[in-house]
């Protein structure tokens, strides 16, 4: 590649990006390295190498705590919630972003404000409601809550995506006599696929990490999600001063989600870019 004076910003930013990514990777590497150290080695200094590579930390953490169970719980609850959220949000986001009707802007605003509602504000009333329906400490209750609380954000996000879709095809279909359902399913949904996919990733990721609702609504070991599991793990290991074990636990929790995400991400990001050149 030949050097062009006008392209200097590009080189500089690339350099910054490389530094950024390098730092992130290095941090991850450091985390993994630390998970093999003993507690004493961790606190000796950043550059202390583990004296011997053994899986002690991992074995200790794995045998003592039911991390796998938490992961399965999370996977189950989060997947179902994500699908539910998308199914519920896509039509209404389409309607709100593309069709003006009585109250549409009011409803949109209502959802946008909903994104700003902190869970802490509403969880006492919610708890009383859920408790009345015997939905605390259950998968169903958590799925329910995750779905409701994700709606505003997802709808808002999808509205943004629907807005960017050009209206020519839709107009043509309408003139051809297509019903709203037909033009939504046959035209808008396929065109909004990248939007749906990234909305799906975001919802999944947000719920995978979700902590507060789980903390309040789940208290039995059987239904605990991975975030709760990690929180417990940190409590247990810091109070016994087992920092080597703590790092191993963190690795065990984040590694599967990173791997899982990398598999998904390839497909998803590929999905996003299909839209190129079709404007």
């Amino acid at each position, binding site marked *: 590649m030949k050097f*062009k004076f006008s392209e200097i910003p590009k080189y500089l930013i690339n350099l910054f990006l490389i530094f950024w*990514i390098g730092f992130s990777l290095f941090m991850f590497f450091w985390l993994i390295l630390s998970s093999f150290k003993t507690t004493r080695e961790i606190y000796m200094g950043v550059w202390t190498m583990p004296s011997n590579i053994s899986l002690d930390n991992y074995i200790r953490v794995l045998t003592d705590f039911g991390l796998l169970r938490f992961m399965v719980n999370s996977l189950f609850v989060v997947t179902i919630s994500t699908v539910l959220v998308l199914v519920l949000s896509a039509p209404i986001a389409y309607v709100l972003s593309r069709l003006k009707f009585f109250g549409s802007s009011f409803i949109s605003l209502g959802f946008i404000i909903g994104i700003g*509602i*902190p869970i802490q504000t509403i969880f006492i009333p919610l708890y009383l409601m859920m408790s009345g329906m015997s939905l605390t400490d259950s998968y169903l209750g958590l799925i329910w809550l995750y779905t409701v609380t994700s709606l505003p954000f997802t709808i808002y996000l999808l509205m943004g995506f629907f807005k960017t879709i050009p*209206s020519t095809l839709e107009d043509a279909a309408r003139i051809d006599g297509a019903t*709203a359902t037909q033009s939504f399913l046959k035209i808008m949904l396929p065109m909004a696929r990248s939007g749906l996919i990234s909305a799906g990733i975001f919802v999944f990721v947000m719920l995978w990490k979700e902590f507060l609702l789980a903390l309040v609504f789940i208290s039995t070991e059987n239904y605990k999600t991975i975030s709760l599991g990690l929180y417990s793990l*940190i409590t247990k290991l810091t109070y016994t001063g087992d920092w080597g074990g703590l790092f191993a636990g963190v690795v065990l929790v984040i590694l599967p989600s990173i791997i899982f995400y990398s598999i998904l991400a390839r497909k998803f990001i590929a999905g996003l870019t299909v839209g190129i050149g079709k404007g």
Partner: protein
Amino acid sequence: MDYRSSIFKKRYKNFILISTIPVVTFYVIFMILPIVQSLYYSLFKWSGFTSYKQYIGLKNYIDLTGDSLFLQSVLNSFKYVIFGSIIIIAITLMFTYVISNYKSKKLKDLVQMILFVPNTISPVALALLWGFILNTRWGLLNGVLDKIGLDFLQRGWLGNDYIFGAALSLLVWIHVGFFIVMYIAAADRIPTSLYESAKLDGASSWKQFTKITIPLIKDVIETSLVLWTIFSFKIFGYLYVFGAGGAGADAPPPVRNISVQLFLTAFGKRTPINRLAYASAMAIILLILVAILVYVIRNLLMSAETIEY
């Protein structure tokens, strides 16, 4: 298009009703109604342990104006909005510029993927990790600075002078990865023909980016700005754990946003402040602030002309 006067109105009516009414009802019952309840609670003196409450009118709101920790958390929230949005959007745009120019799709995907990874990790783990990185004595950052001969840059990153910036840096690191996926997806939807004609005119890639890409992904930039504003007030897990060094302590006041302050007031953690009604008043203030900010931002940006392509 205004469908009210359109002949298509009837054809769309059922679809609108079916897609809107259940979701809105669901939403109103489980999210709006509880807010009204919270608003109601905010007029009481109530710990939240028993149903006994004492009506005190607007006293909680008056008390808030003299609560130094709360006021600090409001200020912090605004600092997160302002500094965060400038830094995050600037970096995300810069990255969008270079990444969207990558010829290799694989590289493009890979870079986006790596940037997004922090978003897949539990806030509890990240906040803990970040605290370790910024530790004065055996933290990674000071360690690296020392190794590469920049030891004069070493700081006590978790002291009062820097801890806000330290928390913000964590949020920036995470959210650049969050927004970049949105930006790139939007940038990729821009027809290549636009760039080709610009190239024929001899425009540099930077010029193409500022003249074509930015205007055409304006919607997404706006979305990210609104989202970040909301996040700044609402983000909880990272700030709850960061600076507390684990699960056991309260986050120090310089990093708390309203959301964290609210939680600590309603439930305590190590300090048993149990003022649920008072915290409800904070929540109402938080909602009002978010609503005003979002309204202002949207109006400022929406007034600009929308570009069609």
